[in-house]
């Protein structure tokens, strides 16, 4: 029995009221903070998915996105490091297609079936840009989903899968483009989405002998708020009772991550025995039939879609959104002269990506960053690694810089003390200046620190505990 053994999701804390983009536009879309990208969101979703799960049991990680930080360089390795997964696992990026998330899912299922792995993490994230003011910009949302595929403790068994491809230029982004392009919507939806996803769903039902009444819920990727309703109705489903809400009012189309995130939303509501149909879209479609087991009750303690959607801050300042996305030129103020060093970053990767400090084996003192000589007992080289990324902490003291140029002021610096030991000085993000105080509970979030000399530098920041 192969299937989903755990799920996780991440929706950024910030939502842009669509009114800010166009007068009369309804609802809100989830947007990354200035220091987030698809990699950081994937890390958050994976860590949500790993809640209560031994990270050492994960045998592979597939990362899917159309919004890569690099054109040539693996990104799954960054996600795997930040999730503190083993080094001897298989990692791969699935890219270039909105279907990449389900392509990775299918590859993971096949890897488990073939016996080459026991557990594979599938993570998908996107933060696509529509031309400022366009309908696409209104539709797009940012987010990430993660599914842990395995063959034991399965919460949703994969009963069937079915795929088709089609070659069409309906929605695309060329190398060098900043914004997603789309052909006329009538063409894109009739000859693209409706025809292809309709074809894969009917093909799957025909091949495996299902009828619309066999499914408790259908989860369809959709390019806009209405199209999946049209699709479900045309296929004989009752859109009102069977179709998963595509969350356009609260989140928007999260691209590659969208089908996975909607599936997580459906699983959060599912009961043992439910059957779920999942279908993606992007130059073809991947469809899956999932049967929910009673194991589902054991993985409820995730923030998932519900928790993340409920924890939000709505922004109405369109200019702020443009600055965060780097779309509004800023006055250039000369910064400090600093040079990035790949060897230095490589040497520090255990600390900087895995957020591993050290624990002294002689006196037990937890220290970050890792030291050679213990700060307390001065024992030399007698340390064991100690993961801090999953620990909660409290602010001991802080400062808020209103002057040094940054995409979002004030820049909050915190010195935090971890529950269970260890102190760290780090930036704080996703915060309201008025809430920052000594003693405030925080947790760690993997963020983009800066782009320098073609390298994207990531590190951990503190954030107020998301509730």
């Amino acid at each position: 029995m192969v299937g989903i053994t755990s799920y996780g999701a991440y929706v950024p804390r910030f939502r842009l009221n669509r009114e800010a983009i166009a007068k009369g536009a309804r609802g809100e879309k989830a947007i990354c903070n200035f220091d987030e990208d698809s990699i950081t969101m994937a890390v958050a979703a994976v860590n949500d998915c790993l809640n209560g799960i031994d990270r050492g049991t994960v045998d592979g990680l597939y990362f899917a996105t159309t919004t890569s930080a690099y054109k040539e360089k693996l990104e799954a390795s960054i996600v795997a490091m930040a999730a503190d997964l083993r080094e001897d696992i298989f990692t791969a990026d699935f890219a270039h297609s909105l279907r990449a998330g389900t392509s990775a899912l299918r590859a993971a299922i096949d890897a488990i079936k073939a016996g080459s792995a026991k557990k594979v993490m599938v993570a998908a994230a996107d933060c696509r840009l529509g031309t400022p003011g366009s309908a696409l910009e209104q539709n797009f949302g940012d987010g990430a989903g993660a599914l842990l595929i395995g063959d034991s403790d399965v919460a949703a068994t994969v009963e069937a899968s079915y795929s088709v491809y089609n070659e069409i230029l309906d929605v695309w982004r060329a190398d060098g483009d900043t914004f997603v392009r789309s052909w006329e919507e009538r063409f894109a939806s009739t000859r693209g989405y409706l025809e292809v996803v309709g074809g894969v769903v009917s093909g799957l039902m025909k091949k495996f002998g299902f009828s619309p009444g066999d499914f408790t819920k259908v989860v369809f990727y959709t390019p806009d708020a209405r199209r999946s309703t049209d699709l479900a109705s045309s296929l004989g489903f009752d859109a009102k009772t069977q179709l998963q809400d595509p969350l356009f009012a609260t989140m928007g189309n999260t691209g590659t991550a969208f089908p996975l995130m909607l599936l997580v939303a459906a699983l959060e509501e599912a009961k043992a025995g439910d059957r779920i149909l999942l279908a993606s879209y992007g130059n073809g479609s991947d469809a899956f039939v999932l049967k929910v087991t009673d194991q589902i009750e054991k993985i409820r303690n995730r923030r998932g879609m519900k928790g993340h959607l409920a924890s939000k801050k709505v922004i109405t300042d369109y200019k702020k959104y443009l600055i965060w996305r780097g779309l509004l030129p800023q006055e250039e103020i000369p910064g400090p002269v600093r040079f990035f060093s790949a060897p230095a970053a490589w040497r520090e990767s255990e600390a900087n990506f895995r957020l591993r400090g050290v624990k002294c084996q002689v006196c037990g003192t937890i220290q970050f960053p890792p030291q050679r000589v213990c700060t307390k007992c001065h024992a030399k080289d007698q340390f064991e690694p100690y993961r801090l990324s999953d620990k909660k902490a409290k602010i001991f003291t802080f400062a808020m810089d209103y002057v040094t140029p940054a995409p979002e002021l004030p820049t909050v610096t915190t010195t935090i003390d971890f529950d269970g030991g260890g102190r760290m000085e780090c930036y704080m993000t996703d915060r309201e200046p008025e809430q920052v105080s000594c003693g405030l509970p925080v947790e760690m979030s993997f963020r983009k620190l800066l782009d320098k000399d073609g390298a994207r530098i990531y590190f951990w920041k503190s954030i107020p505990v998301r509730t």
Partner: protein
Amino acid sequence: MGSIKDKVAIVGMGCTKFGELWDKSYKDLMVDACYEAFEDAGIEPKDIQMAWYGSRESGFTGAHLANALKLEYIPVSRVENFCAGGTDTFRNACYGVASGACDIALACGVEKTKDHLGGFSMYITVPFDRSLVEWDLPPVSQFAQLATRYFHHYGLSYEQGRQILGKIAVKNHHNGTLSPKAHFRREITLEQAMNAPMISYPLNLYDACGMSDGGAAAIITTPEIAKSLRKDYILVKALALTNGAGQAVLQPEYDFVHIPETVAAGKAAYQEAGIKKPRQEIDIAIVHDCFTITELLIYEDLGFSPRGKGPEDVEAGTFTLEGELPVNTDGGLKCFGHPLSASGLRMIYEVYKQLQGKAGPRQLKKADIGLTHNVGGVNGFFNCAVAIFGKP
């Protein structure tokens, strides 16, 4: 361990005007500071046997000083130790004389911060390429964290805390008006200090020192030679230097309401100088008020005020020109700005002049024992220099 006490003397000092010296190069500042010192000591440049040059950015080798002054083929070492660089330059020259390696040494610190675009944080470069996750925070956010915790620790409201810090700024600005070489020379009101634009919460514009260009120099020799040159030479009583080992950020026990590097340097200096009751025995202290919170902590860390009682002493006017222990009589970093490697020597210059009774309108009635103090770096990694001086 030996002691420097009474083993070396200052026989001459020079200090340039501090400020936005657009028309002066760093070598101009070397010449101006050193020639004032030569004249003050009554010696010629050729009398210098060894020299130490302090700079962070303005000249990376001793040859820069040699070229400016035409010190031909004598040893010149460059010293860099961040905010304590000036005092450390002086310290090295003192040990050079005390060791007997030379009889007359020059210590000079110069910095041209205003030749760089932007403020302090723009000016500081890291010496090594690195991963950049240790993205150097602007210094103000390091010290602002101390202020945040100080307010929290002692239950001061933001307004109460700001009031105390504001009074320190007002005091130093007043002293600066009496200091012809200072960069900023105007009074500010407490209201101005309270309501200035925020820089890094809870510190505002008037909590921060400015950035300036400047240079200062000292001629150091043995007490015997000093006697032959002038009557009012000044004796070095103590030289202490400490460095943090990261404790503040590695050990959650650190409370962020004191700077342990200052405590340790003060203790070492007092022991060397034989000072038991600093508040009573020290007549003048020129300390590192890079931010007002730093000066507040120094009161307590150097034993001028009991723990947590610094604010009471500020309210009582203890550290004003007329107070029990005048601090930053020349206006401090607040009014001079902070050209890093020049600051320590500028502080010694003020103590030197006060002890000689040549401090003009800000001259203290009693000035027999003086102290200077620098602290620089980031929490856990401060370097701190404390020096004590006395009359022969």
